[in-house]
């Protein structure tokens, strides 16, 4: 455990050091985030002005998207891309001969990216949004804590789904098509493109029975008070249930994947 934490922090330190050697990276990341924010605002302001936005307010919708973007920096793990790339290039051989777990290395380097992105992209976006657009605060301090808990659970679900989809690269030896497929699943069922309350009733029902909305939509709905306080506990319980199911599935598939593995370039 001590070993894992030491290695985790060291990998993060090295990655951060690497990131900050490229100053252009920082600037372009920051500008991209601000442009995206501006484009989003222009689109939704126009929609609300036309009166086509249903039962929501511009402030609520913008709050949804800004927080969504910030969370996605921590959620949208690139495990899939990394595993896919490692398999395609054969580098996975290098990583599997290390005395630490492959997953630990994956998590560490992903968190390193998230931390740097939080500083260079999320922070400027958040500040600009608070000053110029105005974001809704959480309903109460309790809501804030439940929201944070829900975000963490959502992140675990997201990573598990991501890993499960990535493992298929062991069979297909090419990952890119899957990466787009994964993205589409979250955009459609997870609430990445639209808050789910804009969906027609039947599609909303479908989403309920899939794990995707528990990654991003559930925490945001908690934050905005869209889930009645009586049902919040139920939502959290559902998140935990999905974690159990997906974790089991992930372990089973990883077992097969490890067994199946053929490193390219034998």
């Amino acid at each position, binding site marked *: 455990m001590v070993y894992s934490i030491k290695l985790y922090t060291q990998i993060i330190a*090295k990655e951060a050091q690497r990131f900050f050697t490229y100053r252009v990276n920082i600037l372009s990341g920051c500008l991209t985030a601000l442009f995206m924010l501006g484009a989003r605002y222009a689109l939704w302001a126009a929609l609300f002005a036309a009166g086509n936005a249903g039962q929501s307010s511009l402030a609520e919708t913008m709050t949804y998207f800004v927080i969504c973007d910030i969370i996605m920096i921590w959620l949208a793990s690139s495990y899939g891309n990394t595993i896919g790339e490692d398999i395609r290039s054969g580098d*996975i051989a290098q990583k599997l001969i290390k005395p630490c777990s492959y997953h630990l290395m994956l998590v560490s380097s992903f968190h390193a990216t998230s931390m740097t992105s939080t500083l260079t992209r999320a922070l400027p976006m958040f500040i600009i949004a608070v000053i110029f657009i105005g974001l809704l605060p959480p309903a109460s301090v309790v809501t804030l804590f439940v929201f944070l808990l829900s975000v963490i659970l959502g992140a675990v679900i997201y990573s598990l789904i991501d890993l499960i989809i990535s493992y298929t690269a062991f069979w297909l030896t090419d990952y890119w098509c899957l990466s787009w497929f994964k993205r589409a699943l979250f955009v459609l069922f997870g609430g990445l493109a639209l808050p789910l309350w804009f969906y027609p009733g039947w599609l909303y029902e479908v989403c309920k029975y899939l794990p995707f909305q528990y990654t991003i939509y559930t925490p945001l709905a908690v934050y905005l008070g869209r889930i009645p306080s009586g049902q919040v506990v139920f939502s959290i319980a559902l998140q935990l249930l999905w974690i159990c199911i997906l974790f089991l599935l992930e372990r089973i598939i990883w077992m097969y994947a490890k067994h199946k593995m053929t*490193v390219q370039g034998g």
Partner: protein
Amino acid sequence: MSQINLSEVTKDYKIRIRNNNRSKIADFFRPQYDIKRAVDNVNFSVEPGEMVGYIGPNGAGKSTTIKMLTGILTPTGGQVSVFGRDPCRNRKKNALKMGVVFGQRSQLLWDLPVQDTFELFKTMYKMEQGIFTKQRDRLVEMLDMSGFIAQAVRQLSLGQRMRANLALCFLHQPEVVYLDEPTIGLDVLVKERIRDFLKQINKEQGTTILLTTHDTQDIEQIAERLILIDNGQLLFDGGRESFHKQYQGTEFMIEIEFVNPTAELVHKNFRTHKVEGNRHSYWVPYSKMGRGEAISYVANDHPVADIKVSELGLEDILKNIYAE
């Protein structure tokens, strides 16, 4: 118990065949596969401190064997054991006592100075600060790395990167080291330095080294024992000397340049290859006559300007074996 032990090890790969006669759609829905046997019933064992050259043509199954020894590939059949353990089941445990260099890949952090990778490996391999510093300084000196240890990896030459990778591989004082073509693409001087380094570290620390290479000089200078594999099958396993004996053929050639034009020599052991004025060449069977004996027989009777005895070198031997 040997340090490394393979018994009846076999590895099959499933390879997808793209049949041009079948329709693309049929191929997509019902792909056809072929089984390729990369390693076929291989047996050998290695004792601590041995320096083994693992040779064979491209695609012979060398890298596959190494991947099974490191525990990243599971054998289809047979048993692999390293340190008396199954390397697949004990991958992380074995990794602490093992070092690997894949000549075509780098373990270094691309954007950072070399020493940063060293520090990361210190944590990864659970090294104590004191031992780490001592070991690092020693490797830096042995491989002459002091000039570039603080430079970013992306600015290094291939030779510098290879030396850094080797140093990393030996940093945690592994008991067994697998080197997969460690001298590929390097110049003569760097190769020389690496060979000296490997010999020295093997002598001082008793590290077992298993290396694959296509450079016959590597084998001549480093490996005391040779294991030859072709098409997944073990063809030879033994000392370098006995390898030469087994494969160099039954005859050597003696080439003579006489001072004056001379008639063809007649001797029961000489088989004429070519006679042109004062330049002659003959085949002589090892079993009938030694090299010295043949030379003195020729030089005793005639004034000789030059004599050359040619035997098959390792390079020629391998060429013959691979071509078969």
